[in-house]
């Protein structure tokens, strides 16, 4: 039997942030993970709040949060904790050579693989659309054989957003990376981790570079380690280079995941992979241990404190085998949901109001401890974070990673 101060379950952004924050407070932390976490699926930028309840664009996430209803996770977390979590995140990414930028007062506009501009709060330099400012020419860099990045549609859609007066040109580069299967951004990023790839790319692009007049818009291919690739290419071209969001795998999400794992190891967090947590052991108002399945055996992990970051419906932390019966898989926590077929979803997939089903989750008090339907605390030492929280639609309001970051930070600090 293993004993820790804190056990964190789940390895998405919330789980990683909770584990790191706890460890940096001097706690003995065990992180239990089952899959690879959701960072490889999302673009690794931190949306805090992009749209309000009426689907109106929020210029300042800080001000937008004030208008949210009292049951929204941000209201439980509090502005103070949100600010501190952003500070901690910015400091950590800087320390690990992958500095993010941004603040709660202003959105950063990130170009997407379909040529729209997506608001986010914190992003690495290489995804910050502010870099388009002042340029007169945008060079869209497509890669021979790379799926999911189509210069034509990016050009068509981004033109009205950045300005009809700019010049747009598509350049296709040949990486030589073929061999019987479709290549992904990750293949190209790995190729660019090496000098040979980077030199090939920069030589191909150099003829188009005209200092601050040109900006290069690329898929997420600039290396798998922090901002090294973006720095190198920017240095060689002496022009701004910007990456778009994309379909999975998300290289930028993986870059962020990579520095989290480095930091967790540096902080002495014990990471147990491929382990499925089955159930909790309860004593009075406290959880004393969780039982997990590793290979064919069950193993018990004891701790003083538990942080549940299992990712809601998205990652299987919450399941719903039958309509109107959502379940939290490990602690059997009460799951709040919007009843009624007519409220469960909107007729339109992309609507001007949140989707009912997306609001499903666990309700907590201001300490992020789970509550039952009567508002009574269910556990005194099990904290709920990230997508497991009820009462917000992360897609509609563009708030997923922000809620994950801030709730994880707060849970770790409690």
């Amino acid at each position, binding site marked *: 039997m293993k004993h820790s101060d804190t056990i964190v379950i789940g390895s998405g952004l919330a789980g990683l942030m909770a584990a790191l924050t706890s460890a940096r407070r001097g706690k003995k932390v065990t992180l239990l993970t089952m899959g690879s976490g959701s960072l490889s699926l*999302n673009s690794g930028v931190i949306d805090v709040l992009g749209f309000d309840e009426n689907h*109106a*664009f929020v210029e300042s996430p800080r001000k937008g949060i004030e208008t949210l209803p009292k049951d929204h996770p941000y209201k439980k977390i509090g502005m103070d904790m949100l600010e501190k979590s952003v500070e901690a995140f910015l400091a950590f990414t800087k320390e690990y050579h992958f500095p993010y930028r941004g603040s709660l007062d202003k959105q950063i506009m990130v170009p997407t693989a379909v040529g729209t501009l997506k608001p986010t709060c914190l992003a690495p330099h290489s995804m910050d659309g502010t870099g388009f400012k002042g340029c007169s020419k945008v060079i869209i860099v497509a890669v021979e054989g790379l799926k999911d990045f189509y210069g034509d*549609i990016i050009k068509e859609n981004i033109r009205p957003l950045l300005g009809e007066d700019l010049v747009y040109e598509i350049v296709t580069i040949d990486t030589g990376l073929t061999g019987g299967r479709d290549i992904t951004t990750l293949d190209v990023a790995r190729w660019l981790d090496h000098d040979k790839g980077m030199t090939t790319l920069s030589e191909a692009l150099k003829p188009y570079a005209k200092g601050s007049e040109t900006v290069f818009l690329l898929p997420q291919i600039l290396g798998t380690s922090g901002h090294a690739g973006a720095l190198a290419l920017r240095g060689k071209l002496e022009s701004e280079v910007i990456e778009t969001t994309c379909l999975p795998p998300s290289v930028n999400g993986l870059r962020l995941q990579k520095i989290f794992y480095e930091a967790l190891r540096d902080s002495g967090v014990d990471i147990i992979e491929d382990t499925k947590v089955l159930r909790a052991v309860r004593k009075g108002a406290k959880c004393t241990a969780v039982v997990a399945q590793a290979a064919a055996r069950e193993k018990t992990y004891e701790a003083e404190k538990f942080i549940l970051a299992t990712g809601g*419906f998205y*990652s299987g932390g919450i399941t719903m085998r039958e309509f109107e019966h959502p379940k939290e898989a490990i602690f059997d926590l009460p799951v709040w949901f919007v009843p009624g077929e007519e409220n469960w979803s909107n007729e339109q997939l*992309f609507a001007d109001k949140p989707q009912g089903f997306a609001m499903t989750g666990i309700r907590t008090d201001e300490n992020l401890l789970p509550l039952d339907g009567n508002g009574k605390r269910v556990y005194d030492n099990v904290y709920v974070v990230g997508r497991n929280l009820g009462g917000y639609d992360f*897609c509609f309001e563009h708030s997923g990673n922000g809620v994950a970051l801030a709730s994880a930070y707060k849970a770790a600090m409690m």
Partner: protein
Amino acid sequence: MDKATVVVIGGGATGVGILRDLAMRGVDVLLVEKCDLVNGASSRYHGLLHSGGRYAVKDQEAAKECIIENQILRKIGTSCVEPTGGMFVRLDIDDPDYEGLWVKGCADSGIEAKPITLEEAFRLEPLLSKHVVSAYLVPDAAIDGFRMSWQNVESAKRYGGRFQTYREVVGVLQENGQVKGIEVRNTITGEIEKIACDILVNAAGGWAGKVAALAGLEVGVQPDKGTLLAFNQRITNHVVNRLHKSSDGDIFVPHGSITILGTSSMSIPDPEDTSSSREEVENLLAIGEKTFENLRDYRMLRAFAGSRPLYMPPGGASGRGASRGFAIVDHANDGLKGMMTIVGGKFTTYRLMAEKIVDQICAKLNVTEPCRTAEEPLVPEVSENDKKEARKYFPAFGTNLAATRLGPERFARVADSLKNHPEKRELVCECENVTLAEVEEIARDLSSFQINDIRRRTRIGMGTCQANFCALRSAAVFAKYGQDNGARDSIGQMKQFLQGRWKGIRPVLVGRTLREIEMTRALYELSFHVNGGKKA
């Protein structure tokens, strides 16, 4: 003004069957359809090629037609039929007396129903409920309604048959009690066009009553909605039918990598109503899990519904009680010469229905050519040699599937493109193994106006990921080859395509379907930000 000797209204199985038959007999024929081909009940059903077993007790005439047509369709449309075989199983809660009636009904109708031991039944279908008490094998099969219908059209084209999609009939032109033509609205441009004809065939299925009304006629068609569920796995090997009096949710049909469970029966006022409610889904699951007890553990891809065109002769029964047979109405008897309506029937008998009405049309036109639709294959098969050659260039294991989808001419063009342009080997849809070359081939076709039209012919977006990945990719192809601004609007096309998938996902938004849709939204609403929002 466009003109044809015969105009056929309705691009479902019946309509395209008539188109082919007339064209093969040398008649100048044009088919008009208000949407894309095969958009109504001909694709919105379980895809069962009936052995006739389902009708062996209630309607032996229909049962006999089924078993004969079953054999014919296997022969003329080999690549449309998956010869899964069928099984009828009786559960311990089902009426034992019915079994006897059914066995006799099959024998009387010429359907071979072979009793098998329970041990054999569980060996063939390991997931069956242990409440099964008897089992029979019948010659049911799975059939692809999209493909069969498109192959009819391809065949008709070779004989000079023509078709126009996205043309909605808005008026019937007549003079002195004789049909002169129709007025159609181009649903994409909004323009009104006239088409002259000598004979007008109303094969509009659930919409037949509405079309007849345009000519001031009355045809008793009751649209009857059938809801079905598609599961993401192959739950059965055979078509599995419950051996009891027909009811909702008692047929499982395996298709490719999925299984379809059907079907409910509900009279509806409007054939356009293809919505499904949670209650309908729950009903289907509740009955379906009697035959397969762990049904709820499988991920549902979507629910879908179509409206059967049940014919209501004055004073007849409705719903499940109504005949699944078909009827041909010659409106000369109602005072309008040259107009005929065909209603009722089922997919399995579409060819026979076409033959019967075309016989009558030919008699009017003094055409003596006999019907050859039962002998001649719909499309020449792609030769084994061509497939062998193409396998060198096809990525993954998509060659056979592509060959059956495309037919020889298109297949040859796609294989050529793959050979000469390695970059076209990219898979646009990994779920159904569809290459960029194939999507481009269909995207360039003048009958493709939206990604959904490409979907119906290539199966992109119909598999496991329900368009999460191919929506972007096919929109990019369409942006390049689309024939108008609408087709080239990449964001609009993606949203419309995903909305089409959403319609079927909504009623089954439970279990693992929830995870999939969280992913869809995270990709398109968050990462791609296609849902705009309002300026502050």
